[in-house]
């Protein structure tokens, strides 16, 4: 049990610790400290994973470049979300009081959620990965209904029901893949480790592998929020407390796409290019559906949820265009940007006391930090240039054309433009509309400057300059998915 095992144990320990915390603020402090410690440990362990695969527990748990890349994004977003949770729960704008019992429940579930995500990403055994996925569903469902009011519970129910059924199908795909591997090994021993599956992949029959991929796509696709199975996403994000929805849409969707990319590298050797032809329509359909909803959505958090659906569509498109480097780069940009916009949206909701964007007015003047942060976040989200999402979208478009998907690129760019206009219109209406109305009740400082400026700075830097370690990490991770 070298250092790798500890990445799972540390969050579990903090989860237990937070059950015995005396006061709510103590829980929040614990959350912040715990997430930063697990982040630090993950960096220590994960760094060498980019050069060679690190594994433990008889190969059951491992970290290769792809999972290390995703793990780093998860712990990074988690750390900042914990800091924001401190501001969110201590400020006065919330509907339900943050008493000791809810605080403990929140702390425990918060770390269990982190633990299950790390388990999913670090599991070499596909069954274990499935278990981790199911665990994330359960913990995040309970986090969504932290406030015991009716819509939140119903949203949590929808989320739990839908994802459990979908992940059941994903279990079927795991079973099919392992059964096929067992036949191909000829030893009669059942094979569950992804690394072995990968080696056996060229010898597999193409038909069962494709069947497994179809089930995996439907199962994990629902968890990733790909249309038409995205129904739960706006419900869950709309009702969840903001730090939870920030993490949900920031990193949880990436884990689901990570599982799909694992299956892509299994299917790829036997039927090259077939997986892309399946992923591209899903990506485009998700973007189209998301664009339609973004145009007329009034609830600020549901709007951001639909943006998540759109960007998951773009990442799937990146995978479909056989450009995993661009898709992974876009995953990083989207996580950071979505986190930023959710923080600012949360502060705005607390400031104005409502989630309806129609009733938020002159946000730039009354809540300059949150309003300005939200405007910049939306600009970044829709691909305005100085920020990095413009660069990753251009990279994906270029890859699409070079691989001959010209009609798909045409649709991709048109939908991106439609989303640009619709989202920008919402932001403009919020920032400058209705000068006559009075300022919101309490302009509480729902957010700290660091939480807004740090992600923005990161987005700006990556947008213009690709640092060497990031390029190396992207290259290694892309090689695993099968950069042609």
């Amino acid at each position: 049990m070298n250092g790798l095992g500890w990445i799972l144990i540390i969050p579990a320990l903090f989860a237990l610790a937070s059950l015995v915390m005396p006061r709510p603020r103590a829980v929040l402090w614990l959350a912040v400290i715990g997430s930063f410690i697990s982040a630090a440990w993950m960096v220590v362990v994960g760094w060498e994973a980019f050069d060679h695969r690190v594994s433990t527990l008889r190969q059951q748990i491992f970290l290769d470049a792809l999972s290390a890349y995703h793990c780093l994004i998860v712990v990074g977003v988690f750390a900042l979300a914990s800091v924001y949770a401190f501001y969110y729960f201590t400020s006065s704008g919330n509907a339900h009081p943050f008493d000791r019992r809810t605080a403990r429940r929140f702390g425990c579930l918060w770390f269990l959620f982190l633990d299950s995500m790390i388990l999913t990403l670090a599991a070499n055994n596909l069954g274990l990965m499935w278990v981790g996925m199911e665990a994330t569903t359960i913990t995040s469902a309970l986090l969504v209904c932290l406030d015991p009011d009716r819509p939140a519970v119903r949203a949590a129910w929808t989320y739990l029901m839908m994802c459990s059924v979908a992940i059941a199908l994903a279990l079927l795909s795991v079973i099919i893949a392992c059964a096929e591997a067992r036949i191909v090994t000829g030893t009669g021993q059942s094979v569950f480790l992804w690394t072995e599956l990968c080696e056996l992949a060229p010898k597999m029959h193409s038909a069962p592998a494709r069947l497994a991929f179809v089930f995996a796509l439907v199962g994990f696709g629902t968890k990733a929020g790909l249309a038409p199975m995205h129904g739960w996403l706006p419900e869950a994000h709309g009702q969840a407390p903001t730090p939870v929805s920030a993490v949900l849409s920031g990193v949880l969707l990436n884990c689901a796409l990570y599982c799909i990319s694992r299956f892509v590298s299994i299917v790829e050797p036997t039927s090259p290019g077939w997986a892309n032809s399946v992923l591209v329509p899903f990506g485009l359909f998700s973007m189209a559906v998301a664009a339609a909803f973004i145009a007329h959505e009034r609830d600020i958090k549901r709007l951001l949820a639909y943006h998540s659906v759109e960007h998951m569509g773009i990442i799937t498109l990146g995978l479909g265009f056989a450009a995993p480097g661009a898709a992974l780069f876009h995953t990083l940009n989207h996580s950071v940007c979505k986190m930023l916009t959710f923080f600012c949206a949360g502060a705005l909701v607390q400031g104005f006391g409502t989630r309806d964007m129609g009733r938020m007015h002159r946000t730039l003047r009354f809540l300059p930090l949150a309003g300005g942060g939200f405007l910049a976040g939306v600009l970044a989200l829709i691909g305005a240039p100085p920020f990095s999402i413009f660069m990753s979208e251009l990279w994906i478009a270029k890859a699409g054309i070079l691989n001959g998907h010209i009609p798909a690129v045409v649709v991709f760019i048109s939908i991106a433009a439609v989303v640009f206009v619709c989202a920008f219109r919402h932001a403009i209406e919020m920032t400058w509309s209705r000068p006559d109305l009075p300022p919101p009740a309490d302009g509480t400082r729902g957010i700290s400057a660091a939480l807004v400026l740090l992600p923005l700075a990161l987005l700006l830097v990556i947008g213009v300059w690709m640092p060497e370690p990031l390029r190396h990490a992207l290259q290694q991770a892309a090689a695993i998915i099968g950069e042609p």
Partner: protein
Amino acid sequence: MSAYANLLLVMLMAVDLYMVSTTRLDACIRACIIQAMILATLPFVLGGIHPDMAFSEQMHFVILAGATQIVKGVVIPWLLFRALRTLSSNREFEPFMSLHYSQLINCALCGVGFWGAAVLPWPVEHPHPLALGVALSTLLIGLYMAINRKKAISQILGYLVIESGLFVAGWALLKQPSSLMELGVLLDLLVAAMVMGILATRMDAAADDARDGNGGGDE
């Protein structure tokens, strides 16, 4: 041995059809218990346990069967009965599709299940005639139960039927127990059922009535 297997699989199908056609929730939960018992014995019949296997492997079978029986047959029904007591009514009033149509649809779903088992390229050398078909049919019936029913409790039941369908498919495809996999599945099933139970009761506490899983207009 396979004769018993066919018998058990047919009994499983019968239980599924019974669950769909009843509107009383407590009857459904009892049907679940029966289903759990069938699933517990199935590995012995289907899995090809034979006397000359090593003692530890045989113990493996026994532990798994015991665990399945305990989790699916005892703990989860107890949870559901507790949830049922807190909810006001015991009867599922009007599912979306009336019972007659539900039964017809279920037969169609069984047909689809068997068609799928036959046509789709499943990775199994010498497939058991019934196993995969029954597994898929159970899966589809469970999915249909979740879609058609309004009450939260009956949706949990639908989810359980799906899980049992998967269990059978697992055995049909993998043919021998893999400890980590089964334990993980059971554990998750247990926790999922527990959480659903809690949510269902809380929904009842928060909502005026648990009549519909989530009917009523959006706010």
